């Protein structure tokens, strides 16, 4: 659609809307509902070297304007993703962003090296921020130096641009962003979930079998907007924004904050048709803002421009 095309490292997007990793599986379920080729891109479920079953159930719990999940990176493993899921996805005219996860540096490097060879994988998303995995992985997402080194290692082997997915569970998000920029990242995706918990009112026990989980949905949007606002002013990498996006208006808010594209996660569970709906509604909103192209509004919140008077 006119005015929605976006060019990002490795990605030529028809429009800036894509489902977020872990909220769309490998696309099969949604392919029964609409044509996946209409999406800007697809961020597929995290892939690890070996298959993972993930955490025991319950794996989700509802919260006020949000939800907690502790899926635990369930996935069929690199080989099956590479040989079954990606070739299946190749029938659609849509670039794939492969979400790469692991518990050691070697894990990440191996998945990145292999999966970046798939012809329809146009970019990697380095998941250094999954809160639901117990091993040492937390350091990747919270210590700038560790994140930088991991990014470097992955960049060395990847055949496609590498986006790093930042965790919001840090004191200083700008430091993390700068570190992965130094490490050679081509872009950022942010934010992953906030760490949260809910307790059952009868037993007193955590509702999630994993106890804590990742908080997503509209509740976290103000945190994401703030972080993107800060980071986009301090690094020169493009940002794919996410966290609580439900409507085309939310997409505009993310662009204003500094995002160049937007991913939709939890909202796919509330309304499986949400991505096509947003894509349909965007052109009119962009039009109303008086710009020809959605990219023109990226960072408007902090770029100087003629303040329009909007008081009736």
């Amino acid at each position, binding site marked *: 659609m006119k005015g929605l095309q976006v060019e990002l490292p490795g990605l030529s997007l028809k429009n800036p809307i894509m489902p977020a990793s*872990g*909220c*769309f*599986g490998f696309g*099969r*379920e*949604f392919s*029964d*509902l609409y044509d996946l080729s209409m999406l800007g891109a697809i961020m597929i*479920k995290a892939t690890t070297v070996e*298959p*993972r*079953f*993930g955490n025991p*159930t*319950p*794996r*989700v*719990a*509802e*919260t*006020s*304007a*949000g*939800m907690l*999940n502790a*899926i635990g990176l*369930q996935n*069929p*493993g690199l080989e099956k993703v590479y040989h079954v899921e990606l070739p299946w996805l190749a029938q659609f005219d849509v670039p794939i962003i492969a979400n790469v996860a692991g518990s050691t540096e070697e894990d990440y490097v191996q998945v990145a090296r292999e999966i970046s060879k798939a012809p329809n994988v146009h970019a990697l998303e380095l998941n250094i921020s999954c809160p639901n995995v117990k091993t040492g992985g937390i350091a990747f997402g919270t210590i700038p130096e560790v994140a930088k080194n991991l990014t470097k290692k992955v960049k060395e082997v990847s055949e496609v641009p590498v986006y790093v997915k930042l965790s919001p569970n840090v004191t200083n998000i700008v430091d993390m962003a700068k570190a992965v920029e130094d490490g050679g990242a081509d872009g950022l995706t942010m934010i992953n979930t906030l760490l949260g918990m809910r307790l059952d009112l009868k037993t007193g026990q955590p509702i999630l079998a994993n106890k804590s989980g990742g908080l997503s*949905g*509209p509740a976290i949007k103000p945190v994401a907007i703030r972080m993107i606002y800060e980071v986009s002013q301090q690094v020169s990498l493009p940002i794919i924004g996410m966290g609580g996006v439900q409507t085309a208006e939310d997409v505009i808010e993310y662009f204003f904050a500094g995002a160049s594209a937007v991913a939709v996660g*939890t909202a*796919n*569970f*509330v*309304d*499986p*048709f949400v991505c096509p709906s947003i894509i349909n509604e965007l052109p009119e909103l962009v039009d109303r803002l008086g710009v020809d192209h959605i990219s023109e509004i990226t960072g408007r919140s902090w770029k100087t421009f003629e303040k329009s008077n909007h008081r009736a």
Partner: protein
Amino acid sequence: MIVKELCQITSQKEIAHDIFELTLKGELPNSMNEPGQFVHMKVSNGLDPLLRRPISIANIDKKASEFTVIYRKDGRGTTILSEKQPGEKVDVLGPLGHGFPVEEVNKGETALLVGGGIGVPPLYQLSKELVQKGVRVIHVLGFQTKDVVFYEEAFSKLGKTYIATVDGTAGTKGFVTDVINNEELNFDIIYSCGPTPMLRALENNYSSNHKVYLSLEERMGCGIGACFACVCHTADDPTGFSYKKVCSDGPVFKAGEVLL
């Protein structure tokens, strides 16, 4: 085919203590082809609550373009649902999942339908379809107490119906399994929906020499197989990587297929 539709409420009744029978009208019933499937309902327009609620389909009336669900007013979502009036619309996604295989029993054979609490509703549509096929049905329905018993008469019209209550205030005192044992019921197949301990007892006692189909419950996110919230291990690989999703592979499984 999965459809998302704003269905109109044609009736909403409290049929037992905190148990509501809700009938909705729309195109959706045209896509409903298996008893035991469920719908995923958004009980409010806004963000509160955020997620949909899975509820089994209890009755399908294609001619009237209506379907019925029966639910217990429990937490925030079902409470909001219970306050809705005829004429209001509800956002329904469905039909979801795989239901009870009616083809697994033949005309003239006997099916035992075992329900517990809010697991009873999907058995109603199933029973109707079985009877229509010429299958003899026996119902054993367990509830906590007299006040929450529902549809006893409706089930009785379709076949012999036993009620059990935990406190003995209606029917037999005890569990459904007690009824099956005491009444020395004979049957060719079991279909069941209810609390996991009940399903486990049926699997343990009967699956070695009967066909047994069980409908499971799990906390859900998407309801369509995308989020991996509702997975369970398969029985042949109880600690491995193989899995089934309750929402899209189930909710009905053959006993022995998944780990209860």
